[in-house]
């Protein structure tokens, strides 16, 4: 059983196509390129003696800097929340061992300046408040370079790694993913962007005592309160 085969992808990135004109006068579509870190599974030729580490930060920093030099749009990290197993035995033939997506992207923000930082984050085994503050924080810490590839899973196999695992019916996973995104946008939008005054003279740090107020109710979520990360770049 694979923990990854039942993920499905839906991108919410910052990449938008903009056309420009070529010398012939015909519109020339500019291509966007992303670099996928080929860390795990069977896509990596690990048996070559020159194959590097799939987990050391230097490997990630090298790929990110190289992609940035080549003016790629963004670096992309996949995610799998349980090691693959066959008949109860951990699959041992392919590369395994990957970092936490948010954490390694935040570190990569320190060694790059322009490259987008796209992370795959699961909507089933996370909660909107936590994921929204992580993405908003990453966006602040990278000065506006974070992007989210949202995936869903429902399987009890992956759920065994989580305290709230195994509660989702297969047919509900897209509903949860959609509601997860709606809740996250609600959280991102709970700060308009003009609330932090930091006015030493008047003593007003915030211009609005209700900054960050939010509420979201749906079949999967019932959350309300105040979001604690000001609007990100």
């Amino acid at each position, binding site marked *: 059983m694979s923990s990854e085969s039942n993920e499905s992808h839906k991108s919410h990135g910052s990449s938008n196509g903009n056309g420009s004109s070529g010398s012939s006068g015909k519109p020339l579509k500019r291509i966007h390129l992303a670099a996928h870190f080929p860390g795990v599974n069977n896509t990596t030729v690990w048996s070559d003696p020159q194959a590097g580490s799939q987990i050391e930060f230097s490997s990630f920093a090298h790929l990110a800097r190289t992609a940035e030099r080549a003016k790629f749009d963004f670096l992309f990290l996949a995610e799998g929340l349980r090691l693959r197993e066959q008949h109860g035995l951990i699959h041992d033939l392919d590369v395994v061992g990957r970092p*936490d997506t948010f954490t390694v992207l935040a570190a990569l923000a320190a060694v790059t300046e322009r490259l987008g930082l796209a992370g795959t984050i699961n909507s089933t085994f996370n909660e909107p408040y936590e994921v929204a503050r992580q993405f908003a924080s990453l966006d602040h810490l990278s000065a506006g370079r974070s992007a989210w590839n949202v995936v869903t899973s429902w399987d009890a196999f992956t759920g065994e790694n989580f305290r709230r695992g195994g509660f989702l019916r297969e047919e509900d996973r897209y509903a949860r993913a959609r509601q997860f995104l709606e809740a996250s946008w609600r959280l991102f939008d709970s700060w308009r962007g003009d609330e932090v005054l930091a006015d030493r003279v008047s003593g007003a740090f915030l211009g609005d005592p209700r900054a960050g107020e939010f509420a979201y109710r749906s079949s999967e979520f019932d959350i309300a309160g105040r979001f604690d990360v000001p609007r990100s770049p």
Partner: protein
Amino acid sequence: MPASPAASPSSPTASAAASPLHLAVALDGAGWHPSAWREPDARPEELFTARYWADLAAEAEHGLLDLLTIEDGLSLQSEHPFEPDARTDRVRGRLDAVLVAARIAPLTRHIGLVPTAVVTHTEPFHLSKAVATLDFVSQGRAGLRVKVSGRVDEVAHFGRRAPRPLRLEELDSPAGLAALAESFGEAEDYVEVLRRLWDSWEDDAEIRDAATGRFIDRNKLHHIDFVGSRFSVRGPSITPRPPQGQPLVAALAHRGEPFQLAGRSTDLAFVTPRDADDARAIVAEIRAAQRAAGRGAETVHVFADLVVLLEERPGAAAEQLARLDAAAGAEYTSDARVFTGTSAELADLLVELAQAGLSGFRLRPGRLPYDLERITRGLVPELQRRGLFRTAYEAATLRGLLGLPRPANRYAADTAPTAATA
């Protein structure tokens, strides 16, 4: 036998007179005093930028501090311990502390990075791999301060538990004690899961054996099979064992339940003694918990937290505090003792408190970056003159700086194949 700080291996240059102290700085917003953000050299408009945190980390590392901590929570800051407030005159809003630590990791080389993380609402699997990754990106300088949340607004932010409002004065009622036991019992389970997941890969699990086509020796990856009354986690981690083996686990403790957690589960306790006698009693309680958990031979550091405002002219720091209090409209109070004075006076106090069995201090700068600079440029040289603080970093990892060995893997002796369940 409890680990005594004086005898612990954390004192590589120990003289007969006194063992060197460990120093940590607690970073939070513009400093711990609520008016600090209005100071002339404060940078309140930069609190949500990487540059601000990178500059503070560089200053702390310049002062050879053992580690820095970063405060965090899953709600806006509040004057009230369990509920939100609607104040607009104080710093509100913050970034995820683990991600701030990761952002500054590649920019620093020696200092330990210890973000705060709430364990009450989060997934131990996620936090385990996040801290393991922080250890990879910092090459062995990661730690974690686990924090139990009693805030009702945080419950509503997650929507998965029944809110259970608490008041400080009710903590010792039967209901309050039951709630504390539940919350800290959960925290202990949580730390157990973190630690098992960090060990779930043996150090030599990755074999890259081209002859047999095997990347890993599957017998060296382990299901952790934690089954508790609150949650169960199967494992193994998706992240290999981090450079330190076990990143540092810390907790802030003010009373019996967290003292138990500190002694049973952590490597470092931050405590808030009023004076040396109080410190002695707290250390004894933590040591007793440590022994009861069979950890008597391990080093568990106990650092006292102090809020510090420092000026080099005697009496000036107290005047500064009065001025800040006037701006805040109230006298500043804290769970930790508030110190005002000179670097030499603070050094005297640290020496006195250390004799109660503390191995170090976590200083909370009243004003940032001002009091951090007074620590690194005033206090540290003063302690160095007295032979009480390092003059160069002597270890490459945070555990190394604190004299903690790289621990053996709890699963290393277990060579049985991982059990099948599918």
